[in-house]
């Protein structure tokens, strides 16, 4: 069972929800797909961390063989190659690793080499298996790291898996939710929060994913995110109050569900609701 947690807007509480659900589930897997700014490991503090470098393939030029025909330069849609002063130059960081230049080169002057763009870490926090993708700073594209993170986990379908997604609704989020069985949208009660909730709402509908909303930072006042859900008949999975103690625990990267009985109950009950929803979806769709 793979549950993706996403939000559109940043800072609404994706990591709060993901790590606390993983902790409440006890035997579970947590995967941090926010490879640009991964934070789950700061909360879960995994031990026995093993690391694997993630690289992409980029072209390597043998200028002795290159005859300057520029077929590769013309072919590359990403402008990652240029031929200046009788020399072919590759711009490593704009290359999309499509392999096209190597295919079109008539002189076999191009081969492939590996370029490291980040890493994947695996560790254990209590009974939670923790996977973290970390993109190197200065890199543009973290998708190959996310692919690696999610492929590795495909075998363990029986474990509850929580996928902590990046903000937004672009390719990187799409990649993170692609194989999810269920999506949790985390929303905050602000004008910005609702506008961005609408985006991820459209995204999960587009990909036909079953989903529900967790309302975070709830105050006594009218909640525009809640109104949004009620108007569209969207399942509200739970409400997390705007609460000073929870805020402090969270800002100190503590897992609230492990520190305080009140929050343990809150996240256990949220987990129950989510589990029932996922089972319901599996039954109705099978």
């Amino acid at each position, binding site marked *: 069972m793979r549950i993706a947690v996403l939000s559109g807007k940043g800072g609404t509480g994706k990591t709060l929800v993901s790590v606390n659900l993983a902790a409440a589930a006890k035997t579970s897997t947590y995967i941090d797909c926010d490879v640009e*700014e991964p934070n789950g490991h700061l909360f879960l503090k995994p031990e026995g961390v093993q690391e694997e470098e993630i690289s992409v393939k980029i072209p390597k030029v043998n200028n002795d063989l290159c005859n300057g025909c520029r077929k590769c330069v013309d072919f590359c849609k990403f402008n990652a190659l240029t031929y200046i002063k009788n020399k072919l130059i590759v711009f490593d960081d704009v290359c999309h690793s499509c392999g096209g230049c190597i295919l079109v080169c008539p002189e076999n002057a191009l081969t492939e080499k590996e370029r490291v763009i980040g890493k994947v870490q695996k560790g254990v926090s209590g009974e939670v298996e923790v996977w973290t993708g970390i993109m190197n700073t200065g890199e543009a594209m973290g998708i190959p790291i996310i692919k690696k993170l999610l492929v590795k986990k495909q075998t363990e379908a029986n474990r509850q898996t929580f996928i902590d997604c990046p903000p937004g609704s672009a390719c990187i989020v799409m990649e993170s939710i692609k194989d999810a069985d269920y999506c949790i949208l985390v929303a905050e009660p602000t004008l910005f929060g609702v506008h961005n909730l609408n985006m991820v709402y459209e995204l999960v509908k587009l990909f036909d994913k079953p989903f529900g909303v967790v309302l975070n930072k709830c105050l006594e006042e009218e909640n525009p995110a809640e109104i949004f859900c009620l108007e569209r008949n969207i399942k509200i999975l739970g409400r997390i109050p705007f609460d000073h103690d929870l805020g402090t625990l969270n800002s100190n990267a503590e897992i609230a569900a492990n520190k305080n009985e009140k929050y343990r109950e809150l996240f256990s009950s949220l987990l129950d609701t989510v589990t029932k929803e996922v089972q319901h979806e599996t039954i109705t769709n099978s």
Partner: protein
Amino acid sequence: MKQLLILSGKGGTGKTTIASAFIKLSDAKAYADCDVDAPNLHLIMGWKAEPKKTDYYGLPIAEIDLDLCIECDQCRESCRFDAINAEPNYKVDPFACEGCGVCEYVCPVEAITLKPAVAGELMLYFDQEKAFSTAQLKMGSGTSGLLVTEVKKQLKSAADDSELAIIDGSPGIGCPVIASLSGVDMVLIVAEPSISGISDMERIINTAAKFGTKTAVCINKYDTNIENTEKIEQFCKRQDLPFIGRIPFDSNAVKAINNGQTIVDIDCKSGTAVKEIYRKAMNFLFEKGGS
């Protein structure tokens, strides 16, 4: 045109809240929202008129003509993005396709062509005085960096004579952020006093440093965790980064935003704090011989 870009690494620290306050305080003639993935600045800038809208074409997407396709499978085998499915018919997944053109090249029967695809929409709000450039990327699209570049180009062509441009950035450190960094004169980082916020701040500072952009830091909601606020200030001291102020947590800020206002439109403590940060940021941006 001096360009000030507001970034944060972590999402939700208050980039748009601060950018909108800066725009009001400076009466900026030119500003942009480079968070094309989740733009929000337009929600509070109070433009009544509809913007000028232009379709944004990202990279083209491959299309297979099934009448010509001989199911040789070469396209699927050559595609590095797993964008071609063979079942039930050969078909390109438009969300996975990056428009590289390899499939078109390997196809022996010319059944594949690259077709232009709309990947988002550019929007320009303008009147005699001001220009506001923004955009919305289409769901699941992969060319946010290119669209960010278009947003900035659009701003330049609409208001190149403006002395100052304020640019709201996106969270993260990847392609849209890197595209937004190009050519700016200064980055203001809005940090949040949490362990996550500190980690993310360090990563965005490293990213900005790789592009040699001068950087200052401020903290939003500083009083939600004083200990972490002090850690951030010490970090800035160690890194020799100008630290230009603290903004307190302020429930009036949320109220202002939810009413479609900036925090300097009402009398509130976060608004007062941001004025001082604005003054320091302008000094740093316009100072001569800066790093």
